[in-house]
């Protein structure tokens, strides 16, 4: 059952015409980054909340306009003081107080579940300009560092410890739940309980500079066993270059100074300025959702990062020859 049919069934008859009247709204119901796709309990709760508010707003809208129509067209003569007084007391005080009170109670009863304590992995995510540093804190005390991608086990509640380096960002995977701001120097915590395996998309939701719109990431929800296997693999050092071309790329990576900013575990590259590239070839996207992970994507990025993300804090390497860039790309693409 798609999210779409579910949303439509939750609405009362008659409102389907309203939905059809807005193809934009319908188009937004699909997709990996839709708030109306329910990848887990949190998103489902928020969708229900949205539907309740939407239906309420539509009913109110018709009610108010109906009243307006009645008072100006149907019965335009002045009404008695008595009627007017009751209208003020009932419609102006009692009705809003009770309605808002009910919504407040409803909203508050949702909160304990949305803020439940995590029982799954603990993931530290730091917002940078314009990418995400991701660190899994394992039970044995060790940390697995990666970037621009988050993987979560289905059926467990993961805890996110959110931080930021310079400016305020906001961490949001619309199909998995609500969002939470990331502040420099102040760790905020949120938990998400994804249920349906799949690849969703997250997006920075607080304007953070030129390339804010290009600050996204993939969030893959996996079966718990697959997740553990992936995390074990992620903890391993980088694979050795498999081809001579990749070998030349690995050498260039070091001589061109990439290692000053990037870490490739198992090599002398230990920089912490940019994303950890140890397993960058196994990711779903490059540069925080900006590009794919084909060899040509790596080549395009390295030649001129600023062309893809204005203001990117990585220098362009357009002085390298195509062959050199190709070798670096082959090396990176092989880092699975």
């Amino acid at each position: 059952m798609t999210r779409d049919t579910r949303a439509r069934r939750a609405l009362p008859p008659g409102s389907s015409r309203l939905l059809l009247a807005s193809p934009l709204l319908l188009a937004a119901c699909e997709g990996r980054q839709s708030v109306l796709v329910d990848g887990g309990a949190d998103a489902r709760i928020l969708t229900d909340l949205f539907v309740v508010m939407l239906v309420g707003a539509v009913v109110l809208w018709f009610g108010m306009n109906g009243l307006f129509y009645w008072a100006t067209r149907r019965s335009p003569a002045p009404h008695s003081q008595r009627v007017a007084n009751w209208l003020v007391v009932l419609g102006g005080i009692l009705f809003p107080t009770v309605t808002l009170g009910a919504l407040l109670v409803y909203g508050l009863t949702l909160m304990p579940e949305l803020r439940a304590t995590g029982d799954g992995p603990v993931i530290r995510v730091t917002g940078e300009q314009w990418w995400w540093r991701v660190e899994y804190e394992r039970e044995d005390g060790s940390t697995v560092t990666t970037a621009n991608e988050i993987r979560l086990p289905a059926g467990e509640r993961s805890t996110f410890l959110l931080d930021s380096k310079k400016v305020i960002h906001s961490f949001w995977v619309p199909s998995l739940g609500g969002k939470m701001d990331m502040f420099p120097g102040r760790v905020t915590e949120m938990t998400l309980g994804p249920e349906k395996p799949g690849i969703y998309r997250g997006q920075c939701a607080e304007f953070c500079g030129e390339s804010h719109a290009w600050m996204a990431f993939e969030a893959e929800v996996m079966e718990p066993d697959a997740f553990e296997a992936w995390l074990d693999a992620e903890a391993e050092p980088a694979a050795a270059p498999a081809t001579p071309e990749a070998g030349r790329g690995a050498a260039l990576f070091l001589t061109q100074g990439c290692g000053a900013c990037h870490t490739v575990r198992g090599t002398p590259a230990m920089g912490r300025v940019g994303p950890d590239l140890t397993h960058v070839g196994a990711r779903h996207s490059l540069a925080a959702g900006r590009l794919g992970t084909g060899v040509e994507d790596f080549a395009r990025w390295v030649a001129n990062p600023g062309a893809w993300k204005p203001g990117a804090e990585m220098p362009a390497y357009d002085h390298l020859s195509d062959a050199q860039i190709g070798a670096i790309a082959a090396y990176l693409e092989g880092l699975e």
Partner: protein
Amino acid sequence: MDRDDHDREPQPQPHGDEREFSEERESLWRIAFAPTIWAFHFIISYAAVSVYCFKFGALFDMNTLRFALIAMTALMLAAIAWIGWRAFLRWDVRDTGEFTNPEGSAEDRHQFLGHAGFLLAIVSFIGVVYDTLPLILLGSCR
């Protein structure tokens, strides 16, 4: 402070300006009482819970704090209800039948301030109830 003029005869213009204004100054203060209680309720509730959660969470049970704050809420609601009732009497709508008091005489202004104080007490009462709902519905620091 507690003079209530509602049962006095409406007086045309017998007082000097000073007397008139001193009376109204009092009423003016009085209409701010209920919203002030609401403001203090809000500040005390939120400050107490956040300080508790940040510093003293391990020291004593949250329910102790919740019940203390709920008791405070009950007292404040009673105070607001009482203030609202006094303002209602000052407004004197049941005797005069006048809702709006548009005349601008001393007595009129007096009743108008009663009206305003009454409405502000209603808003403050609702505000305090809304402030308290999280305390009742969310029993933890999360």
